[in-house]
Structures are given as C-alpha cells and as structure tokens.
C-alpha cells in the first residue's frame, strides 16, 4: 500500500525539481490530448516549445514576442505571489489590469494632442493608481466587513469588463474613428506611446518594469521585515498575530501592491503592444498570471522564468494553431493542466512516499 509520511521540513531538492517534473508531465499529457485531436503529438510539442525560439523562418518574429507577452505575466504574478504567500487570495488581477489600462489611457488621452515628455510618466502613475484603487475594493471590504476577498475580487473582473465595454463605446471612443468602438490609437500619439526601446527586441517600458519588480520583490522577501511578515502570516497565522503582525495592514498592502502592478501591466499593454482601449482588450493575462505565480513557486526569480515559459506557450500555441490547426482553446486547457500537475507533484515537497502497510502507533 502506498501512503504519505510528512517530512519534518520541506525538501529542498523537490522544491526545485517539482516545476520541471510538472512541465514534463504536462508535455506528455498535452501530447496525448493533441494525439486525441488527431495531430502528431511530438510535432505539436516541438512547435510550441522549440520553434518560437529556433525556427529559422518564424523565430525572428516570435522571439521579441516572448518579452512582450512575458512582461505583463511577470508583473502581475509578482504582485499576486506576495498575497498568495500570506494567504491573501487576489484572483481578480484581470479586472485590475483592465482598470489600470482604462485610467492610464484615459489620463493620457485627456492631454491629447499635448506633446510633453511628462505625459507618459503621468499615464504610468495613473495606471498604477487605477489598478490599486480597484484592488482596494476587495481589500477594504475584507478589512472592514470581513467579506471574502476571493469572491469580491473575482466578481469585480466582470464589472471591469462591462466598464471596459462602456468606455470603448462611450467616453473614450475615438472622435475621429467614424463611430467604430475603441479609443484613439496611442501608437499615433508619440507623447503617450510605450514604444520599443531597442528596435526588434520587444523590449518596452513594461519589460523594464517587470525586471524592476522582480528585483524589488526579491529584496522585500529576502531582506525586509515586511517580507518576513508576509511569509510568517502565510505559514503560521497565529504566530504572526502574537508576533505583532497587523493582519489588516498586510491585507491592504498585498492587495494594493498586486493591484498596482496589474494596473501597470495593463497600462504598458494598452499604450504599447495593443495601442488602444477596445472591447476585447483583455486576453486573460490576469488569470494566466496565477499559474505563473505557482509555477514560479511564488519566488521572484522562479516567476521570472515561469513567465518566460508561459509566454512561450502562448506564442507556440499561436504557431501551432497556424501550422497544425490546433485550436487556441487547447492551449488554455494545456496551461490549466500544467497547474494541476504542479500542485500534484508538490506533495513530494512536504511528504515522503512510503510503501507497505502502516504500523499501528
């Protein structure tokens, strides 16, 4: 008989091994799924994980995309990981991402066509504030009314989506757009455009912000008192309370920082790769970032790598749907599977597998 025996302390080896084992297991299970769809599994996996980087024809186009897609995922996941560590579950990053984009782009467009170097920094700040305020709704409700932050933050995603639709049809609609939904394109407004910093690399201000966020999160968790409190509150809530950690302050901090980072991600996306506020502006980065946060073991460096890997599956998925006709939804299922395997393999970090019958204690 197989049974689990709790380890005295989590295994270091397995902490590093689990993401790799999970990715390999997902490739195998994903391959089976592609085979069930009637596609060659080996070719499909190669197209998703290898071709975006090394295919002689597509790689030059898709390599820069890697940074473009990874930046929002990493930014959002870094914020979420702080909360997840403390047992504070913000799963509405998608909504904060939308609100950051709306507020940031709205402020930028309010100054149109003013040409000043101050416009873009102002947009960045207001994007962060937009996401921050949207995350403060579940935060304040949790602190003052003990309302479940999981449900409120998630329900607010739907509210944000309706606000997005209303904005692109109403307030922010391009006055010169012949009545089509969607705002002015920020690409044609240089003062508010988040352009590529080095041509052909995909490097824009959002990528820079993502790297800065990784470094700050690393310092916060490894060196700062607040980082210690976050870890303590997650692992031993009672001990944290006795140790003088203010749980309400921690809730507001974690939700606020993750909201601000998600808002930043939205702002960099709307002013850069996407260019405008439109009804279908959000593509689920806020939800995929949850997978990124777990795949990166809630560790800043891990999230950096996980974000790049997840971006790869996005690009590879597009490539696979182009070349093999694998539906885009299969990639979404693939990403969900990855999270399942990750969580399942994680049991080996905290438990040892023992064979044979348990002796009676």
């Amino acid at each position: 008989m197989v049974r689990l025996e709790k380890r005295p302390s989590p295994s270091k080896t397995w902490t590093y091994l689990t993401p790799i084992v999970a990715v390999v297991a997902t490739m195998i299970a994903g391959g089976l799924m592609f085979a069930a769809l009637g596609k060659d599994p080996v070719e499909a996996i190669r197209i998703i994980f290898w071709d975006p980087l090394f295919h002689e024809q597509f790689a030059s186009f898709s390599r820069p995309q890697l940074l473009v897609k990874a930046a929002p995922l990493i930014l959002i996941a870094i914020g979420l990981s702080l909360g997840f560590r403390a047992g504070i579950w913000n799963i509405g990053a998608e909504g904060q991402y939308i609100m950051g984009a709306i507020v940031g782009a709205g402020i930028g467009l309010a100054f149109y066509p003013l040409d000043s170097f101050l416009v873009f920094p102002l947009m960045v700040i207001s994007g962060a504030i937009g996401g921050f305020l949207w995350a403060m709704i579940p935060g304040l409700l949790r602190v003052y009314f003990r309302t479940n932050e999981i449900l409120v933050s998630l329900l607010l995603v739907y509210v944000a989506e309706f606000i997005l639709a209303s904005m692109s049809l109403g307030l922010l609609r391009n006055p010169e757009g012949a009545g089509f939904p969607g705002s002015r394109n920020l690409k044609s407004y240089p003062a508010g455009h988040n352009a590529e910093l080095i041509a052909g690399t995909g490097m824009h201000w959002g990528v820079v912000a993502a790297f800065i966020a990784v470094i700050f999160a690393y310092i916060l968790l490894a060196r700062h008192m607040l980082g210690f409190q976050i870890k303590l509150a997650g692992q031993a809530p009672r001990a944290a309370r006795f140790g003088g950690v203010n749980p309400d302050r921690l809730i507001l901090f974690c939700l606020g920082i993750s909201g601000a980072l998600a808002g930043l991600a939205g702002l960099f996306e709307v002013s850069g790769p996407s260019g405008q506020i439109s009804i279908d502006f959000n593509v689920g980065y806020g939800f995929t970032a949850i997978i990124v946060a777990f795949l990166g073991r809630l560790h800043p460096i891990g999230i950096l790598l996980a974000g790049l890997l997840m971006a790869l599956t996005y690009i590879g998925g597009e490539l696979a749907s182009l070349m093999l006709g694998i539906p885009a939804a299969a990639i979404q299922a693939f990403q969900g599977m990855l999270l399942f395997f990750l969580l399942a393999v994680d049991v080996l970090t905290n438990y040892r597998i023992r064979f044979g019958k348990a002796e009676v204690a």
Partner: protein
Amino acid sequence: MDLSAISPTLLIAFLMVAATPILLAAIGELVVEKAGVLNLGVEGMMITGAICGFAVAVETGSPVLGFIAAAIGGAILSMIFGVLTQFFLTNQVATGLALTLFGLGLSSLLGQSYVGIKPPGTAKIDIPVLSDILVAGPILFNHDWMVYFTLALVVAIWWVLKFSRMGLIIRAVGENHDAAHALGYKVVRVRLMAIAFGGACAGLGGGYLSLIRVPQWTDGMTAGAGWIALAIVVFASWKPLRVLLGAYLFGGVTILQLNLQAAGLAIPVEYLSMSPYVITIVVLVIMSAPRKGRASLAAPACLGRAFHASS
C-alpha cells in the same frame, strides 16, 4: 421608456428559470462545503457540464440524456479536484482555480463544432387546471421539469442534511474531521462523494444554461454564474433553504435588468448588465459584516483544511 410593458407575473415566472442554473450549482457546492471542502472550480464544472450536456443532447436528440451527460461531465471534472485535494493534499483554493481555468479551456475545445446549433427543445409541463389560475398559474405551474426537479432537490438536501444519518456524517466531517476520523468515519471517502455530487450539480446547472435557458453553446457562456453560486452559499449562511432565497434574489435582479434594458431605460446597457455582479458583492458585504449571528460564523469549522490521517 415604457415600464408598463414589464409584467410582474412574467417577471416572476422568468425569474424561476433564470435562477435555476445558479440554484443547482449553489446547492451542490453547499453540500461540498458542508463536508469541509472549498471547491472554487464551480465555474469550470458548470461550463464543462454545459458543453457535455449540449453535445450529447444534439447528438442523441434527447435533452434528458443531455442532462445526464452534463451531470456526469461535471462529476468527472470534479474528481480531478477530489483526487488532488484528498490524496495529494494540494491547496484547495489553488486547485479550485486550476479546475476553473482548465474547465474553461476544455469546454471551448470540446465545443468547437457545436457553435451556432440549436439544441432539442425541452417542453414545458402544462399542468391542465392549475396553470390556468389567474396569477399563480403561469408563475408556478408552467415550467420545464428541471425547474421542479431543482426545487425538489433543494428540499431533499435540506432534509438529508438536517434529519438523516448521512447528513449528520457529512456535517461531522465538515465541522471536525479529526473527531470524525476518530469515530471511524471515512473522511476522505465522504469528501470525495460530496465533491462528486457537487460536480454533478454544477454540471446540471451548466446543462440547464446551454439546453434551456439560452439555449445555445457559446464560449464562456456561464459568465461568472459559478462564482455567483459560490457567493450565494456564503449569503445563505450554509443553509439550503436560504440558498433558494439567494438564487431567486439573483435571478430576479438578472431578469429585472434585462427587462429594463428592453424597456429602454436611460441607463447605459453596460451598467445594467453589471448590476447582478455589483448586487452580489453588496449582499455579500451585508451578510459578512461583523455583528452578532453574522454569516461567516456559520461556516463549517474545517472548511478548506486538508485532512491527513497521521497528523
């Protein structure tokens, strides 16, 4: 604007239909949470049930077989969650989220060839004499069989949880799994069965959406219904009959805002459409605000905690 076009009788009749999918999902989740498990994958199980039921109903031409398939689809998906949380001891919040993300992807994958098809219809049961009663007739006695089935299910679950031995075991496992284990109850087995039941209910709710309520298959058609079902369980303080109240309240808001949209109220459509979500949040806040007898105190004591026999 013409508010007189809104008929209160039809409003209440539609409300019962609009509330049914959420009611099914919420009553299933209530049983799961009573057993001490927090499954946040309701949305994923609902949408998987929606496509399983839709596909089978279209292929066989039988809505009844469709509903059975919807329940089975939801239950199978929920078993992924069950195995992971009960045997692999994974975090329930994270696993539930994974279930929702996976379910959304899987359903859209399965549903590709079913977009834009009409499912076989489900006839309304027209109870001859009763449905002719002036106001109560159309409200109460002129629905499809699923509406009555759901109401019966709610009452049955209320009775089982309150008066039967099985209900007592489920509640014991949810309130204190260590004590239940010491008494010899199979905690993991009870929880797995509860999870499967919750999955089947969520699947049925999804099937009701795609086969009767809409009736059509579109990607992501549950649009947060699973999350609202989760909120309704909290709203109901984990009491079955209050789940009924919560679901009807939500159904009422949904139908009212749809009617107001049709009546051409001066509020933009988007703001009316978001009202059910906003009202759910407001109700959640009212129910969980700190005061005597607040809802969160009624939560099962072991809700969301993993059980490992040796610990």
